């Protein structure tokens, strides 16, 4: 029953997000508006309790959800065989660049954050500064 209520909440908020996104011509897609709405609604125990198991289930199996789109690769073989190598270079390099930039920027910012910044609360994992091991 809980799971049923949970998925109902998710779909309801996604639909509401879709209505708001299209109705108000927001730059955000419907599901993203739905996510923001859920973030606001989660403080309400009724939503919180019910959404939790469904959200955890969906996110745990998130990678399965990409399989149908992934198989769609087969329909784009024409473009991929024509530009395959170049597309592969773009995808691999830019993914590495983005991974490296994000990880290094966040680590640098969190190292600075090791000094108290006022808001560090109990449930915050300690921002352990890694011992100076960079060469």
């Amino acid at each position, binding site marked *: 029953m809980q799971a049923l209520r949970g998925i109902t909440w998710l779909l309801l908020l996604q639909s509401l997000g879709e209505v708001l996104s299209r109705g108000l011509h927001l730059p955000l897609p419907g599901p*993203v508006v739905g996510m923001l709405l859920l973030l606001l609604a989660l403080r309400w125990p009724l939503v919180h309790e019910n959404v939790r198991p469904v959200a955890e289930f969906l996110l745990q199996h998130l990678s399965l959800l990409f*399989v149908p789109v992934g198989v769609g690769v087969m329909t784009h073989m024409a473009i991929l065989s024509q530009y395959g190598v170049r597309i592969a270079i773009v*995808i691999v390099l830019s*993914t590495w660049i983005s*991974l*490296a*930039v994000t990880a290094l920027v966040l*680590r640098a910012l969190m190292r600075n954050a090791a000094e108290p910044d006022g808001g560090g609360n109990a449930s915050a994992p300690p921002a352990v500064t890694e011992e100076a091991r960079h060469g």
Partner: protein
Amino acid sequence: MADFVQLWVYLSSTPLFGLTATLVVYVIAQAFYGRMGQAAWANPVLWSVVVLALGLTLTGTAYPTYFSGAQFIHFLLGPAVVALAWPLWQRRVVLRARWGRFCLASLAGGAAAALSATALAWLLGLPHDVLLSLAPKSVTAPVAMGVAEKLGGIPALAAVFAVLTGMVGALSGKYLFDLLRIGRDATGWMARGFALGTAAHGIGAARALQVNADAGAWAALALGLQVVFASVLIPLVARLL
């Protein structure tokens, strides 16, 4: 034999086939991944896609026929994006205390992804619509499709690029982080998870979740932030250019 062929023709044309095939292949791929000690190369999405695409090609089954069943799984991407609010909510205390830093890292990583992809695509002389479909490749597939549509790219192609990006991130992230000397302490896992969620969206986040629960939560947080930023900023920047 003729009966068997008839039965196959019937079965392969019902939605039941696409849905069942996807789940069966994925469950096996997942078990294989577990057997291999969750080695990056044994990524279940990668192998599921390879096996299914090969199977469909060999049996002469058209993608739309397959998708008529697989769409029920595909559909769940929408509610899954909504569900991303959950990890954000769980981390709300840290998020509130450090939101500026997370936003900054998310913006830096997202900008690096979109700008490097379009710059490289332009340098290599890829056609304009392919270039535009590459721009949102670090955002999770359903959002990437929406963004590509707004830019004038090809939504289906954008989704494929997003999935490929996710696989590259999930496959190679570990080695790249080791190379960059990102540690395996609390800050290290945060940086690894957050980077995977930012650069390799849901597939990267799924990988992070399997390797380390904490990294997985940071990846989900990064994914949520990236979705919000990218869907607002990529079309905006594209209009300004």
